[in-house]
């Protein structure tokens, strides 16, 4: 490309005008408008009236995903055309790193909620300490345990028995997902899922070693295995066995595992795309495979989140 050999700097590639941002905006705004309308129809309006909201949502989402797809396509093409200097690649690395950091903070909010509820709120509701005075007034008879199998509302005899502080109906959790409640360790799915996800991080690493050696066969094989393991994980995770209105236990459980599952889905899709790029397009070389690297970082991140989840949601 540009002959910059005589100077010590490289030219930073600033793309020309681009329609990507505007298209992505249209898609995103339509999809959130649609999603919010669907939810409002369900909760505040007539649940049968959601058709047009669904149309807006699906069109918006489709347009959004299509834009993202072509965005990444263009970025990949630019890289293959040799437009990306080492400096620009560092920008991508930094971008990915800080994006993952922001995701960490997103999960941090939900873990924070879990810890707060388990260590402080639960005992307070059950009457412990100064803050526990409300127990006698509102939640007489509520006993706290984790997993919380009976909500304060139920402890006082249902929503009708305690009209002041009630807003919704929160039923007992039918199942505890905790290890202690499992019949036998080998029948306890979360354990198997942990093994599956940890293994997939490992296979992902082997794939990375493969591409670093320039060994495409090894890369494709192990990356394919990684993607497959990710899919198995998701299928197993789909068997929640808990309902969301099962009080705070169900809430925290769902929020954490649900968002984690969604992130596994994203990570798996990213890896799948890298797999297809390598198998079909012959992309990636030993010293240039950032698309794969970024996806693998994301995958390891998802894996680490799972380890915390396993520890704090399932075991402890």
């Amino acid at each position, binding site marked *: 490309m540009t002959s910059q050999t005589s100077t010590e700097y490289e030219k930073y590639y600033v793309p020309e005008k681009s329609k990507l941002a505007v298209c992505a905006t249209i898609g995103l705004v339509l999809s959130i408008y649609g999603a919010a309308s669907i939810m409002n129809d369900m909760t505040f*309006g007539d649940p049968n009236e959601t058709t047009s909201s669904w149309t807006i949502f699906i069109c918006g989402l489709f347009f959004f995903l299509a834009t993202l797809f072509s965005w990444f396509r263009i970025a990949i093409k630019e890289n293959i055309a040799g437009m990306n200097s080492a400096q620009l690649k560092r920008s991508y690395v930094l971008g990915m790193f800080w994006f993952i950091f922001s995701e960490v903070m997103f999960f941090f909010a939900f873990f924070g909620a879990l810890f707060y509820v388990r260590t402080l709120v639960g005992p307070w509701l059950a009457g412990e300490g100064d803050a526990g005075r409300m127990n006698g007034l509102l939640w007489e008879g509520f006993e706290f345990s984790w997993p919380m199998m009976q909500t*304060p509302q139920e402890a006082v005899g249902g929503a009708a028995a305690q009209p002041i502080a009630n807003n*919704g109906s*929160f039923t007992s959790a039918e199942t505890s997902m905790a290890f202690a409640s499992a019949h036998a360790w080998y029948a306890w799915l979360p354990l198997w899922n942990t093994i599956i996800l940890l293994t997939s991080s490992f296979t992902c690493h082997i794939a990375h070693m493969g591409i670093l050696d320039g060994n495409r066969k090894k890369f494709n094989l192990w990356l394919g295995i990684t993607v497959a393991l990710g899919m198995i994980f998701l299928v197993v995770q789909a068997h929640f066995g808990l309902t*969301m209105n099962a009080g705070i236990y169900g*809430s925290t459980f769902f929020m954490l595992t649900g968002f984690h599952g969604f992130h596994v889905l994203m990570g798996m899709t990213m890896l799948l795309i890298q797999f297809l790029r390598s198998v079909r397009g012959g992309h990636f070389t030993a010293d240039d495979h950032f698309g794969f690297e970024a996806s693998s970082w994301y995958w390891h991140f998802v894996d680490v989140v799972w380890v915390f989840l396993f520890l704090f949601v399932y075991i402890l």
Partner: protein
Amino acid sequence: MGDHHHGPAKGLGRWLFTTNHKDIGTMYLWFSFAMFILGGFFAMVIRAELFQPGMQLVDPAFFNQMTTLHGLVMVFGAIMPSFVGLANWLIPMMIGAPDMALPRMNNWSFWILPPTFLLLASTLFMEGGAPAFGWTFYAPLSTTYAPPSVTFFIFSVHVLGLSSIMGSINIIATVMNMRAPGMTYMKMPLFVWTWLITAFLLVAVMPVLAGAVTMMLMDIHFGTSFFSAAGGGDPVLFQHVFWFFGHPEVYIIILPAFGVVSQIIPAFSRKPLFGYDSMVYATASIAFLSFIVWAHHMYTVGMPIAGELFFMYATMLIAVPTGVKVFNWVSTMWRGALSFETPMLFSLGFLVLFTLGGFTGLMLSIAPSDFQYHDSYFVVAHFHYVMVAGAVFSMTAAVYYWLPKWCGRMYNESMGKTHFWISFIGFNLTFFPQHFVGLAGMPRRIPDYALQFTDFNMMSSVGAFIYGASQILFLYNVIATIVAGKPVSDEKVWDGAEGLEWTLPTPAPYHTFETPPKIDPAHAHS
């Protein structure tokens, strides 16, 4: 590859499809000004209603929608985007970079803002009205008792967060990766430093805000009980999550403002900034401390005493690095060859009034006293001293200071000075009396009040209209400058100005520093 030495494209496409940091900066600035006007309009409704006791113009439900939207629009629509716009314009020019690190994403982070605010404003016309639960949207007001439009509010906040995160990632990548050779970290202008640290804060806390609104969404529509004691949750949990975001957020707002005055005061004192290194360390300490003080907004919710004490002392600690900064600005002026052009006047206004706001902050940080001040007009006075006289004054100073560099024309100095004095008087007339009514017990967020507060409230309202009107003068001055201001061609514009952006031609060309500038290793920071 295409020739890069072209000018901007023509027509609307230039703005829609641009990847140029200056275009994007300009759009951010105009957008934030539009939001400033919109939020100001809401404020005028509030002050008109409060001009006299009794119900005058609007009904209480609408009044609450006004306070809510006023806060949201000003914080997320006016102040934050205005500093992002400034960052876009200035950071590449200050560190000798050709553009921002990720230009297309840059454009996207801007363009998702206008439709999102349109969506937010449109909630005014929805069934049940706009959100009316205050800009801090405490549960259960924002969950159990919220109007249906809350769902749109929640998704808007998600998108605003997305915009801020992308903008911040871009700034971090630019500063870490695009500095010209020789531009070491400790040579960066302070504005760049404060923005780098702000960007870290944003990436860390915006996702937490997203988490908070997500939990609200689940509670409202999907039967979870995060914020409901009946299911084993806790409404106070909302406040913890919100303020874990919210307190760093106030520093997100003020740190870039610190950066701006740290550029302007040295220029008009014709002296380098006093204590550059300590400024950097103070900024970093403030950022760190801002993560461990959030519950000073919650002294009255019934925290355990150990919590009250911890958050009280941690909050007071922030006064130390803040004091370092004020000390440094004053020392910069000490024995300087001062002159008082408009940017300097606004910076001095900032210095005096922000310090006052810091002092009321210290008063509020004392937990036992806060039981008296909390949720009174005293708090309103406090945060307007730091956010309006702090952030908005410094932003105004920035516009006057860099406008000639941006458009190659000089603004009208006497009109600028008039704008300053009217703003200064209007602002103080509005918010100074609020300290007194607050201490005397007038609660915030109410459309009516007891008779004895009438005089001070009338003053406040008159002051607010004066301050509001002075912004029209500002708008006029800016437009007149761009269209027909006296051309300037001096690179430096201000004889005391230092830094790479002042080595560029005036007006700054469309593309700058396509080849990195040489930076004299012996030269101190700018």
